[in-house]
């Protein structure tokens, strides 16, 4: 039961792996430079950044050095890793490394777009519900709860099956549409506690409109939290996309890490011993998502002075 102005504990919940916030607001108080200072000294953050940017650069740059598409038959079929084909070739003679690099690109697109959209929706819903309270809150809360209990994958499967998904961005959008509820919940809880802060009243006395209050007063206070939320959504979207791709509901006009695994399995790479076809894509996803999670913990330590000193 939620009473205006109060929160049940159930509402204030972090997804597993999401560190619960000790304090609703980590008051960064303009210590941005300080934050950066600590961030750059935090091994977790730096390590994760290196991994992620490494993959990002690979995804962005590698495809530029070749003039054929990732699906073209360029080499001998089913050849193992070699100097010419670093990650070997598929049964058709496609360059696995090329697919891999392009797949990473899709992975980032899905993460950014899917995570971004989910963050946008989740935050909007959370902010509005938390700030307005009352009936609006009740309704949005209900919506959130509904979407929350609907198993996202099942919904996505249904949607994919009916609508069909042709491109990576489209897939990302669908994923984004169904992964926001926990964000909405968390943001709502935070907004709830922030909106009773007196600076919100002061902003209102200064003639600020509600949306401006949310955007210019409340959101900046949660920026670190929102950023961490986005990171988790990014990782979640990547995993979800990989899952969908794997069961053959991925984009049809592109290559992605999930699709690589899908075709590897489809074309019996396991039995034919073509491990280079299915090991790299999964490893890349694990590395990227894992790095994101680790970065999240690192950032938590950076943002939260209590943890910083442990």
């Amino acid at each position: 039961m939620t009473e205006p102005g109060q929160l049940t504990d159930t509402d204030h919940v972090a997804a597993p792996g999401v560190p619960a916030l000790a304090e609703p607001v980590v008051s960064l108080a303009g210590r941005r430079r300080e934050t950066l200072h600590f961030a750059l000294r935090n091994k977790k953050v730096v390590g994760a950044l290196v991994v992620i940017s490494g993959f990002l650069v690979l995804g962005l740059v590698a495809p530029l050095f070749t003039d054929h598409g990732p699906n073209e038959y360029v080499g001998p079929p089913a050849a193992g890793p070699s100097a010419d084909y670093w990650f070997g070739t598929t049964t058709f003679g496609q360059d696995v490394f090329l697919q891999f690099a392009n797949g990473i690109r899709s992975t980032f697109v899905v993460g950014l777009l899917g995570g971004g959209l989910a963050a946008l929706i989740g935050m909007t819903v959370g902010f509005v519900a938390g700030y307005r309270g009352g009936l609006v809150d009740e309704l949005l809360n209900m919506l959130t709860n509904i979407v929350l209990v609907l198993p996202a994958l099942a919904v996505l499967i249904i949607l994919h099956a009916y609508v069909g998904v042709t491109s990576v961005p489209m897939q990302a959008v669908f994923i984004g549409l169904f992964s926001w509820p926990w964000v909405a919940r968390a943001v709502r809880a935070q907004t709830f506690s922030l909106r009773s802060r007196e600076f919100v009243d002061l902003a209102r006395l200064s003639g600020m409109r509600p949306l401006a209050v949310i955007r210019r007063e409340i959101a900046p206070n949660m920026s670190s939290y929102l950023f961490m939320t986005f990171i988790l959504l990014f990782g979640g979207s990547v995993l979800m996309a990989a899952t969908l791709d794997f069961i053959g509901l991925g984009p049809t006009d592109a290559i992605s890490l999930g699709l690589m695994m899908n075709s590897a399995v489809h074309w019996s790479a396991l039995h034919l011993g073509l491990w280079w076809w299915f090991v790299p894509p999964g490893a890349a996803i694990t590395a990227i998502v894992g790095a994101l999670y680790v970065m999240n913990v690192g950032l938590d330590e950076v943002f939260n002075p209590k943890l910083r000193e442990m």
Partner: protein
Amino acid sequence: MRRYFGRKLAIYALTFVVAVTLNWIIPRFMPGDPVLRMLTRTSVSNPEAIAPMRAYYENVFGLDVPLWKQYVNYWVELFQGNLGVSVWLFPAPVADVILHAVPYTLALLLPSILLSWWAGNKVGALAARSTWLDNTALPVSYALTATPYMWLGILLAWGLGIVAGVFPVAGGYSFELRPDWSWVFVGSLALHWFLPFLSLFLVAFGGWAIGMRNLIIYELEADYASYLAALGAPRRLIRRYAFRNALLPQITGLALQLGVLVSGALVTEIVFAYPGLGHLILQAIQNQDFFLLQGAFLFIVIGVLVANFVIDIVYVLVDPRTRTGMQGAA
């Protein structure tokens, strides 16, 4: 308390209605006509036969009445446990098809969810107090929770199944056996069950361990922990309290994760050709069996709803703050 449950129930009921309605709407307004599918399948060639066949199948699938009536019928049938007829497995009733697959899925899901939750929390709590464990278990947990279910599945199937040949990689039990309760049979069931279970368990385990570790660190920082320490309480007691309190968000976390876990199970079943729901759903998609897909979807939604509700009840039982009705901001 009653109001709390009333409210929860209302939300669940509403979710259910929305899910059912969505479920009803989508196939009716999307491309892919089940009647067409049946007509194509039955190889009707002469034009005269098409119209009566169409009428016949429309009747079978209940599509020959006005939309509103179809909607009402849908609900009525639903409450009679009737989810319609499968197109792909025509003429099998969807409910039947699903019921046969569900035991396998549950056999994977329940143990993997509960055990991973239990073990993850234990290990997470241990990691929070031991630097050594923290430095080993934590990175492993991160890697695990970031692993896509199917990839872990593929690796296990490949490594332990195909290369090492220790475990079978298809089916619910050996194809050479007829079901009975002999040791051989049960052993075969377990052998086929193990790898899919393991991959589900491992991925979920990582998430819980990390969650618990982080939560417990926050709990150990809490005021009540310092107070106990100031009163000379031994670490053991403080840790026990911290663990107990950290479990609460993990319980709600479980509710939040159910959907993800179910999806994980579906994909894992596909990798291991385990005869559960995941497989059925994949086939339903590939065969445009929207009725089956709908049924499976509904089933999952109901399952998740029920599980959520159970978790809600458990939560109320273990957290006094929800019981008093005068909760403070968490």
